[in-house]
């Protein structure tokens, strides 16, 4: 609860201070309504990804990610020598873990887990100390060289509540990525139910919310 308290304090402060930046209360028009019961996540079929990097660029343009930094990446994995040349591409980004390791180290509470389960960064609070960057076992965070603060995938939270898909899902030519509420009955939950899925590094017990099909190797 302590994380949430801070956020709301800040929002009220801003209201009082008469500024209009950030933290505008949302009334969802279509698509998702943010409730505690929902759990956003991704289902990624690695066999459908052919490393076109469309998601990488879509994310960078949508979120104005500085050059040479990436919120989403596509990893190229080559199998062992006996599999001769087999290449797999794996899209990776912030897992929005249920047990995030990046929240605790933050000295100012800028990183927190919201009521909708998304792990977010409050840009106005972050001091750019980089502790969360080091704490993430998935290497999903980076220090924004322009703003000097932490940056990472937000599941495009500025889009999803108005019925839009995250930019990376939108651009994918092969529908390798599917986004949605894991608790509802929809394409993502059906796919996860019907296919054998795994998460990256389950041994960290962070409970990632990106489920991969055909994730063969530890990456």
């Amino acid at each position, binding site marked *: 609860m*302590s994380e*949430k*308290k*801070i*956020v*709301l*304090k800040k929002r*009220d*402060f801003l209201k009082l*201070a008469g500024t209009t930046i950030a*933290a*505008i209360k*949302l009334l969802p028009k*279509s698509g998702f309504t*943010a*409730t505690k019961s929902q759990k956003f996540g991704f289902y990624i079929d*690695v*066999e*459908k*990804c*052919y*490393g*076109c990097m*469309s998601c990488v*660029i*879509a994310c960078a*343009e*949508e979120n104005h990610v500085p050059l040479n930094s990436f919120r989403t990446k596509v990893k190229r994995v080559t199998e062992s020598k006996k599999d001769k*040349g*087999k*290449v*797999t*591409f794996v899209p990776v980004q912030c897992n929005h873990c249920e047990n995030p390791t990046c929240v605790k180290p933050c*000295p*100012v*509470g800028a990183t927190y887990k*919201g*009521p909708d389960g*998304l792990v977010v960064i409050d840009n106005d*609070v972050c001091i750019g100390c980089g502790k969360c960057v080091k704490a993430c076992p998935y290497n999903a965070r980076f220090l924004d060289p322009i703003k000097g603060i932490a940056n990472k995938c937000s599941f495009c*939270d*500025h889009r999803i*509540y*108005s*019925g*839009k*898909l995250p930019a990376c*899902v*939108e*651009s*994918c*030519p*092969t*529908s390798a*990525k*599917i986004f*949605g509420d894991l608790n509802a009955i929809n*394409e*993502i939950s059906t796919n996860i139910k019907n296919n054998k899925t795994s998460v990256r590094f389950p041994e960290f017990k962070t409970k990632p919310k990106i489920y991969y099909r*055909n994730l063969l190797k530890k990456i």
Partner: protein
Amino acid sequence: MDKNRRDFMKQLLIGGAVGATILSDLPAMAKDEENKAERPQDKTEYKYVYSSCLGCNVRCGIKARIKNVAGQEIIDRIEGNPYHPYNRAAKIDKQDHKYDPIPYNTPTSEANTKWVGSLCPRGQDGIHYTYYPYRVIKPLKRAGKRGEGKWEAITWEQLIKEIAFGGTIEATGEKLPGIADLFPLGKLKKAGFENPLKILENMKKDTEAIIALAEDKKSSALDVSNKIAEFKSKYESLLSTKGLSLKDILIDPDRPDLGTVANQFAYYRGRGQGHTDYFSTNFANSLGTINWLRHTSACQNAYYTANKALFGQTDLQPDIYSAKVVIMAGAQMGRLHPGATGQGLIIQRAANKELKIYYVNPTAPRTEANENIIWVPIKPGKDAALALGMIRWIFENNKYNAEYLKVPNKLALKAFNYATPSNATWLVITNGDKQGQFLKAKDLGISTENKAVVRFNNEFKVFDTINEGELFFAGEVTLADGKKVEVKTSLQILKEEAMSKTLQEWGQISGVDPKMIAQMAKDLTDAAPQAGTYVHRGVAMHSNGEYNIISYRLIDILIGNYHKKGGLLGRAGHSDYSHYCYEIAKFSGQPVKWGPQIDRTKFKYEKTLEYLMKVKKGENPYGTIRPWYPLSAEESYTETFAGMFYKYPYQMKAMILHFANPVLSANHGVKFIDTLSDTDKLPLFVGITTTINETYIYADYIVPDTTYLETGTSGIQYLYATSGGATVAESWRSPVVMPRTEQIGVSPKGHPRHASFYEFFIDLGKALGLAGFGKDAVEGKKHNAGKKI
């Protein structure tokens, strides 16, 4: 933690003291907010413009997101166009199976907010073409030696004037010719001839008469020389009445077959987009040059040439919506048509087990799509051996479509539900001086017609008088003149070729395991006709490219998949807007043109006076300065610049290059620098471009062009066959934002005119007085009939 935070806030926030007080006094937050997420939602009001991409020539649909920044519209992001068959559509509750675009009657309000199309990274990055910091905004003129990289900005008026009538490079003192020097019709008009078009028409006719005389085996070399001399004196005396000489009109009065001086001007383009092509052809046609050239040798000329030879169509690919097995050869995943965006459909279908792909390529596929993409590594350029191995297997196992192949003509085919017949049963002469030609009815004496012959029930018949022919036959026939020749059916020849090597040998040449060749052939024939070869530049862009493509495409003919669902389909047609509301392709007052192109494609050397005179004089006509390419479907970069370099078949004087970078994009294109940097080989070089690249650095003048996101290359875009020829659709490229190039004036209707390809040709055409340019040049049609604009 709280304490820390407050300290930081003190330092960070404006009005720190006030802030700190408020923070410390704030109560716990309202309970009703608990279940609501607080997110900064994007509330910017965007404008969306639907258009076509040109990051690569696949031309997917785009949806440009426009943001208003301080009163100026800028491109914020480029998304996929959900209406376009390449991009296909998805929305929040329909993300899996991105197969189809949204119905065309979906309102844009819905498409803007709910639907999305996919788009490759290059297309999304299109913003940088427009906002590239090194864009050419103003007209530039060379201010040093060619290639030195020194430029001066000039006015639009000076640019048009100097390109039309000649200019001087101040730094070097070089005098550049103007295009008016290369406009014979203009010269005749200026000299005061009453009917200049007629003069040129007569000249062409007389030239044809000279060639006809030279082709006549009875005439002597002297006869032809006399005829040329007669031609020269006739026109010299006519032209001298108004102060002109034949040299002003013809490239070489002794070689009238080379055409008029207009041929010494070339328009050369890289990427061709519908309406820019209409525009530039108008200019070339009105000037009278034969040299309207394309970059196809650096693109897919061999692919086009081979398809054209087999099917009469340049672009054919399997119907990727319905095919079950596809041999995807030399079509690099994500890189070739239909691009990273369009190929998404193929990969999805494969991953969903609807399509099996044999990925014939020296490099590995980028996914195996649940083992439905099978990698067949091959030695580069050895595809014909693989294809012939498959053909061998098809013959050995009788898996060819005999029902289709045995039909020799179109009329008989109707009963079988195939689109077009093959010539599998037609007989070919395989020895003697007619070797390689079809056996003709009149040669055999069974009819007076010059038609092919097929064999049926031990009898020879004219191909269109019979419903079926024998597929395999080899034997001797006696011709009407008593000569005996060996004949074989076309299919027999193919079979013998395929059988000339064992499967192991074909495997050895191509580097593919014979077992794999057999498996491919089996899978393909089992799925026929919902199967085909998806071949592209990887196999075509070799020196043996045509043979590779022909070999693969023979498999398609053997299984009879042409124009079948899931089989081979041609590029879908598109509307021809050039004769619709306005007649914008043909203008009265355009001069006749003749002669070979500088790259000698689509022209027979045997039709030139060079060849004919050598034959007449008893010299060996073969061994020319550069080769001729009568069968080539389109033009060649290499041969254009080689032609300019060797001044063969004639000297070039001026070139306008648009949307191209031959130095970078052709194999060993750096060799072209020898031509481009030499003002003797190419006295005037004008570039129309958005940026100065490796080729334009040698230009004399640079015309600033607009990108495809401004006004450049706007207009109709057809779909390539790789989209599945089943889709009848065409997209339209619209301007997305105002051009960044200099404003050069105002149109008659008050719109601002910005420097671009279009405005350049309009003003240059007007300055030269070309037909089709200027006031009242364009005639209205249909509901505009009688109007002129």
